[in-house]
């Protein structure tokens, strides 16, 4: 079947009037913008910078671990580095990156709306993020904390390092998370274009919606908990201090009540991206729309009741351990549903092996193994052996770096034409993707084995029998780092010199592709009316969206 030739106005053109240059240009217009697209871009830039910072910390850690004895740093520095690596990667990158970055840019476009529900609140959310990040940065520059990102008491309340600025920085960033979540929920409820019922929403929106629910409910608890630790560190009020009757395990309950749902704040947006990428690059509808949509809500809901699986060895009662273990099994099912549905989507599809799809392949591989090792950890007796060893480190890096980072990179490449109006070099994209996937495997598969051998986490020096696998892991990390640097370089070059992409270079049916690339500031001149479902690819005659009127192309 040959396609109909593109109509004249469809030759790849860089939309002259777009959100990047209208209504104004210049730093001030960006810093006072209410345009969700500009705010999304600012979030992407900021979170990417912190991704690089956290990655640098990781590289330093891996270099130190090349040797079983002290190598390029002392114990205190090492302890600070792994703490800051965790804090930066989780709170300054992973939690905000896809939701506040891509979510901000895409949500209104996908819903047929002109902006999010509260544009000024959106800008505030960005500034709150920056303020919190700066405060945490201040703490890092002045020595940083050495408690681990989990801040377990009583170590965190008695250590001499500068925990308080970092705690307060994360506390402030939490508000950014809450405000964004609030904005997205209201946008989804109130700003859908006419004709878009809930079951016609793109799957990206479903997952971001579920993420937002977790954000608003879980983050306040973390905020309170970190505040309590900061107060105890500064004033010694003794809520978690056994000498004054406090219970250090209570801190763990409070902390994990947020931090377990937090991992779903990180993973659900990744799944959101993948649903879009699979449909676009298999050029096909999603296999089970309702299953994938509802499983996002399922993860959000059940995920709140599983926090105790981080505490199987902390002395909680076997009854607790049992309840948390069983519930953890259920939360894993929702991920399984998604994995099967995504794979089944490929059946009878028309698969285009472009860079975003390469990242989907990596994502699938890492989510299956990352997820299954999560289930394995939930079978309580196995966790007793693996807890606080490199097995857990490998597990969460598989899901967070493997799955979430793959999705982030997939999103970057898939929506690069829409956000910037340009294309990136596809050849380099595939090369970098392969390097990243291979490098990742070489970094973290040895860590599963190290965990099996019994190497504990957060070890600065280690027994000689762990040496070889540590060297292998560091070697992999260098390849991974190189791949990421390559991505950074060609994306920056493409930003400036990439050829125009045109409205819809991927011929995707996502609603956001109906606008010009880059989109105009008001997204749509007239509110669109939605008549077709999302991810619908079986109507070959339709190249243009089925809603009226046709979007105007500036030529």
């Amino acid at each position, binding site marked *: 079947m040959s396609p109909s030739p593109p109509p004249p106005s469809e030759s790849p053109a860089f939309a002259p009037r777009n959100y990047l240059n209208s209504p104004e240009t210049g730093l001030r217009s960006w810093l006072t913008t209410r345009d969700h697209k500009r705010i999304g871009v600012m979030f992407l830039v900021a979170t990417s910078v912190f991704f690089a910072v956290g990655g640098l910390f990781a590289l330093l850690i891996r270099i130190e671990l090349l040797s079983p004895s002290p190598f390029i740093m002392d114990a205190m520095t090492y302890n600070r580095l792994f703490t800051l690596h965790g804090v930066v990667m989780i709170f300054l990158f992973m939690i905000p990156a896809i939701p506040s970055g891509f979510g901000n840019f895409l949500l209104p476009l996908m819903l047929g709306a002109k*902006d999010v529900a509260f544009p000024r609140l959106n800008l505030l959310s960005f500034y709150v993020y920056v303020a919190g990040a700066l405060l945490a940065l201040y703490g890092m520059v002045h020595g940083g904390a050495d408690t681990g990102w989990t801040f377990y008491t009583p170590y965190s309340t008695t250590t001499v390092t500068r925990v308080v600025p970092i705690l307060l920085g994360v506390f402030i960033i939490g508000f950014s998370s809450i405000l964004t979540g609030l904005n997205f929920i*209201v946008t989804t409820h*109130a700003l859908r274009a006419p004709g878009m019922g809930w079951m016609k929403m793109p799957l990206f929106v479903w997952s971001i919606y579920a993420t937002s629910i977790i954000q608003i409910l879980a983050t*306040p608890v973390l905020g*309170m908990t970190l505040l309590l630790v900061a107060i105890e560190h500064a004033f010694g*009020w*003794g809520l978690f201090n056994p000498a004054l009757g406090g219970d250090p395990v209570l801190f763990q309950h409070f902390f994990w009540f947020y931090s377990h749902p937090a991992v779903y704040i990180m993973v659900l947006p990744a799944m959101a991206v993948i649903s879009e990428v699979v449909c676009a690059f298999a050029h096909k509808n999603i296999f089970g729309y309702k299953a994938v949509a509802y499983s996002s809500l399922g993860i959000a809901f059940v995920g709140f009741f599983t926090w105790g699986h981080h505490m199987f060895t902390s002395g909680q009662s076997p009854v607790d351990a049992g309840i948390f273990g069983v519930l953890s099994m259920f939360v894993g099912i929702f991920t399984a549903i998604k994995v099967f549905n995504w794979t089944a989507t490929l059946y009878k599809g028309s698969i285009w092996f472009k860079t975003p799809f390469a990242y989907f392949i990596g994502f699938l591989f890492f989510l299956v193994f990352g997820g299954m090792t999560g289930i394995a950890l939930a079978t309580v007796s196995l966790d007793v052996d693996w807890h606080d060893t490199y097995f857990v480190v490998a597990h969460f890096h598989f899901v967070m770096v493997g799955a979430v980072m793959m999705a982030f990179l997939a999103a970057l490449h898939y929506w690069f034409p829409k956000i910037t109006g340009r294309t990136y070099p596809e050849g380099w994209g595939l090369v970098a993707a392969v390097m990243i996937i291979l490098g990742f495997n070489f970094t973290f598969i040895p860590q599963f084995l190290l965990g099996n051998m019994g190497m504990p986490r957060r070890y600065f020096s280690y027994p000689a029998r762990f040496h070889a696998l540590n060297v292998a892991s560091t070697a992999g990390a260098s390849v991974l780092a190189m791949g990421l640097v390559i991505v950074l370089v060609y994306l920056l070059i493409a930003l400036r010199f990439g050829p125009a992409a045109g409205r819809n270079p991927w011929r995707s049916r996502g609603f956001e592709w109906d606008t010009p690339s880059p989109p105009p500031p008001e997204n749509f001149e007239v509110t669109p009316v939605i008549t077709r479902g999302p991810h619908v690819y079986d109507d070959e005659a339709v190249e243009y969206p089925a809603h009226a009127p046709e979007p105007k192309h500036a030529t």
Partner: protein
Amino acid sequence: MQPSPLAHHFESLDKQAHASRLAMWIFLATEVLLFTALFAGYSVYRFLFYDGFSQCSRSIETWIGFVNTLILVTSSFTVATGLNFAAKGQGRKTGLFFGISVLFALAFLGLKAVEYTHHFQEGQLPGPYYHFAAVKAAGGPLFFSLYFLITGLHAFHVIVGMTVLIVIGVLAYRGRFSPAYHVPVENAALYWHLVDLIWIFVFPLIYLI
């Protein structure tokens, strides 16, 4: 005549109001969860240190808590009355009643200040500063750590609520709202009711049981 409050990305004032209200309810949910963490901590430690906590609870001045409860409930009533007037388009009366509510809130804070002074004098202080001779059972320092955290956080929210009431009250007095659109007044009232509601939980938990 004021320009229409309709924002450019909403189709109608109706939808905007709906979105505004939904956002407020969600925000209130997050506030509730903030306090839930503290309440959970209180419950756990009360269970572990029953004697100490109940003795400490009896040692603080319940009458102040009771009067404060009456004050807050009354202030919620005046806020609701103000909202009622806003719905009828009588913005000046809204401003007046919100002003009365703010005065009640000030009285609440004043009584709390008196109470805190007594605590300092008696040595009923958190953590290592605790030197309250009358209660020697274990858990005294913890009780007061939680007491100051919970009532302190609540007082902070009272101050925020007062600010919101003042701002919205002044705007209402100046005729900014109409029967067709007075969602900010609704939201301000909702926030104040939450502040009141939280206190309704704090009072029995800390003073009565």
